[in-house]
């Protein structure tokens, strides 16, 4: 019997019934990872995982994470394990500490099993810019489709059914876009709900940790078990927020959902439009009220440039520690300046240098008024407009991407369309944002996104769970049993 392709609760049920053990499962996961053809792996933790699994003897009936293996995006610090954020500049860098979220999951007896590939330093949306090359989407029959990024290896691995969940991060849409392309549940909670301690910074006020799973229940469980104030992260929420699992089954009756008309109007994929309207009808039949609403189009168009300018600007500082002087893949040089120059010249890809240039230009004394400062103002306006919408509606609902996963050679980056990049609004506002699969288009998954008011995490997860009930697209994967 195979223990792959199971959700957290399914695997837990097997442990409780005594049908298998964490060590059996870990061994099977390792075997599957070794057969992987999609280029999802950075450093593996097989020996550590086996030892940890072997130490888990008495099943903890009330602890659903007990013995559950998971994958970790490579920009999350893991003690004693090389952590590179898929950048050559960090080749050989071994973290001295675990990220807070790793500590929490280990304390729950969940088992980290391998690090996963990503777009270099999180700066990319296609899964093609990491130092290990292209990460593939398991749904692409001829190894020809992207899985999206930057959480590419985590998404591909969960879609392949190797593990029930993966840790990922999201600065623009890096969890929610790959989730759409890989038929997964991808969730980024409200900013400040999960400690970012140990997450390699890209832009602190846009960076979020989150999860990729194959069921809304699993993501809701993970959120409940890992959220909360952390003294090591001075941006975590001090107020204790509501748990989400208890309210998942609340019905859609009376829920008010907004579809942003100017974005929806740009969509052209017929299957996607048909299925989305279908979903709307079914939700209304269950008592939800779905409204197609107007929205300031200039603000929608401003989302991508605002995101790009701010994130590139602050990325220059977030990555200014990568000099090769204190750690990392240092190159030789006569002077401090030479070491830094050589290390950064050889360590970063062209894509990263392009972003740093953009960022430095945006922050420069003589140009910042037109770029960084203006983008900060735009951020305020965009967030204000969405908050006004959230005063009236429980959530904004839209397809998470205009189509299924693109072919490898068809993805320009950065792409400029509003409908392809609007998800970054949830980073600008720190909003809870969930992508779940809602249909298949010729065997390729399509995702729908729900985004709500900050700290309404339980509500967004409840809506997602209800939609999952409607679509029946639970535990989608391409793995073999």
């Amino acid at each position, binding site marked *: 019997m195979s223990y792959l392709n199971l959700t957290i609760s399914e695997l837990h049920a097997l442990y409780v019934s005594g049908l298998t053990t964490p060590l059996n499962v870990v061994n099977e996961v390792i075997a599957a990872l070794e057969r992987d053809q999609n280029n999802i792996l950075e450093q593996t933790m097989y020996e550590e995982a086996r030892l940890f699994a072997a130490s888990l003897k008495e099943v903890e009936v009330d602890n659903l994470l007990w013995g559950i293996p998971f994958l970790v995006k490579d920009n999350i610090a893991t003690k004693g394990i090389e952590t590179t954020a898929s950048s050559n500049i960090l080749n050989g860098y071994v973290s001295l500490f675990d990220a807070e979220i790793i500590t929490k999951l280990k304390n729950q007896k969940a088992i980290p099993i391998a690090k996963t590939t990503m777009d270099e330093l999180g700066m990319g949306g296609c899964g093609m810019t990491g130092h290990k090359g292209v990460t593939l989407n398991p749904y692409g029959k001829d190894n020809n489709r992207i899985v999206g990024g930057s959480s590419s290896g985590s998404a591909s691995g969960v879609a392949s059914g190797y593990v029930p969940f993966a840790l990922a991060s999201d600065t623009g849409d890096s969890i929610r876009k790959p989730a759409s392309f890989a038929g997964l549940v991808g969730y980024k909670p409200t900013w400040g709900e999960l400690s970012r301690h140990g997450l390699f910074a890209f832009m*602190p*006020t846009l960076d979020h940790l989150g999860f990729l799973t194959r069921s809304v229940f699993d993501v809701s469980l993970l959120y409940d078990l890992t959220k909360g104030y952390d003294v090591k992260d001075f941006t975590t929420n001090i107020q204790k927020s509501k748990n989400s699992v208890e309210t998942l089954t609340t019905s859609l009756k009376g829920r008010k959902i907004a579809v942003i008309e100017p974005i929806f109007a740009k969509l052209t994929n017929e299957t996607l439009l048909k299925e989305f309207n279908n979903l709307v009808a079914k939700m209304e039949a269950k008592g939800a009220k779905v409204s197609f609403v107007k929205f300031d189009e200039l603000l929608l168009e401003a989302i991508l440039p605002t995101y790009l300018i701010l994130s590139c600007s602050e990325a220059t500082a977030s990555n200014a520690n990568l000099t090769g002087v204190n750690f990392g893949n240092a190159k030789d040089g006569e002077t401090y300046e030479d070491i830094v120059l050589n290390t950064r010249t050889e360590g970063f890809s062209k894509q990263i240098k392009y972003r740093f240039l953009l960022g430095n230009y945006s922050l420069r004394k003589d140009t910042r008024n037109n770029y960084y400062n203006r983008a900060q103002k735009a951020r305020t306006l965009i967030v204000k407009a969405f908050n006004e919408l959230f005063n009236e509606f429980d959530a904004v609902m839209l397809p998470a991407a205009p189509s299924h996963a693109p072919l490898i050679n068809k993805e320009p980056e950065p792409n400029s369309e509003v409908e392809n990049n609007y998800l970054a609004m949830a980073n600008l506002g720190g909003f809870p944002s969930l992508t779940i699969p809602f249909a298949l288009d010729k065997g390729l998954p399509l995702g729908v996104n729900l985004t709500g008011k900050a700290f309404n995490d339980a509500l967004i997860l409840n809506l997602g769970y209800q939609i999952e009930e409607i679509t029946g697209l639970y535990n989608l994967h391409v793995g073999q049993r």
Partner: protein
Amino acid sequence: MKYEVIIGLEIHVETKTKTKMFSGASSVFDSPANTNVSVIDMAFPGTMPAVNKKAVENAIILAHALNMEIDHELHFDRKNYFYSDLPKGYQITQDRRPIGSNGYLDLVLEKGTKRVNIERLHMEEDTAKQIHLAEFTLIDYNRAGLPLVEIVTKPDIRTGEEAMAFVEAIREIVTFTNVSDGKMEEGSLRCDVNISLRPIGSDKFGTKVEVKNLNSISNIGKVIDAEIKRQSALLDAGKKVLSETRRYDESVKDTVLMRLKDDGVDYKYFPEGNIAPITLEKDYVAKVINMMPELPNIKKKRYLNEYKLNNHEVNIILQSKDLTLYFDEATNYTANYKTLINWVIGEVSAYLNKEGKTIKDIKLAPQNLAKLVNLVNDGKLSNAQAREVFNAIVMTNDDPEAKAKALNLVQVSDTDFILKVINEVIDENLNVIDDIKNGKDRAMGFLVGQVMKKTKGKVNPALASSLMKEEINKR
């Protein structure tokens, strides 16, 4: 001189905390190199700053002492530049909203009181210490991330004397409030001087020169004198003063060029996104201020008004915070403040100087010094006897009264006993009595001397003298 001197100071104070500004690494001075270092100080990926509450409280105390407005919310910013002493590639500081703004400090100078306005006071973190050797540079990260407070004055200072007085006043404040060691030689107090000249009567500022990292108060005066000389010579010769960063070179007793100021340096400040704004509740700020140690100027007032000490005495004792704390503690056990201050700045200080000790090194508790002072004031010990007792107990903290007895030093005030001895002496010297009665006062001294001799000096001479007079008159 035909130029007006315009001086502004930037003072960095390393404030006292157990741990660093944003990490849990120890902040103990003088630890072996690179032993007080955490992953945060090294800027390892994924680390985040955690604000040190004590460092914030130190900044609140200083801002209050400098009569500043204290911001009700803490905001931090990133100051971006690459340098080998800066692991993160940026320094966390407060650019947009310093914790303190618009303050002042009144300096008491010989010519009167001078108010120096203070523009801002902000918190930031220190950089690593670099030791440049011929072939390579060593970096000590113990200093990286230590909490600093930077105080920036308005260009209100006009002379070297004022500048020195200002730094001295800051030093006094930070040490008395226990906010910092305030040691310029160890770098816990650092001063940069901005100085420019302009023709007297002009209202336009001249070109400013910055002199960095002065390591003593007297050097501040020397730097200013040297710069006034250098800049006036340039101006006299019709030359321009260049915008420069200079340093003081002890060996040539002059400032030397470090670098030309480059207005192109752009630190690209932006808000520190890893620290959410922190609200400083009014009650909390009030509590911090309420708990702070007494400021030197308030202490001074108390000494003058409550204890009726004179200016000379107060100025001397205020030079040492520890001495004032010792004095303050002793005042709980004696009301003889005058005698007490004379002992503290006299006998005690002399002893410390002679032995090369500080007040913390001696064993004698303030309570026992007070007791000793009371023995003197009550006439139970003469000053000479008290000195002997002091020397015997300063490193033992024995009870002064018991020690005096053990040394056989107690002055006898028992009148019956004294009268008995006096009458003995009179009987033995009846011839002298006649001399005294005939007005030979000198003979009186001889008789008292005899009494002292018989009692081995234990009798209060004044008392013996007056009793002697009475007894002779009876005869």
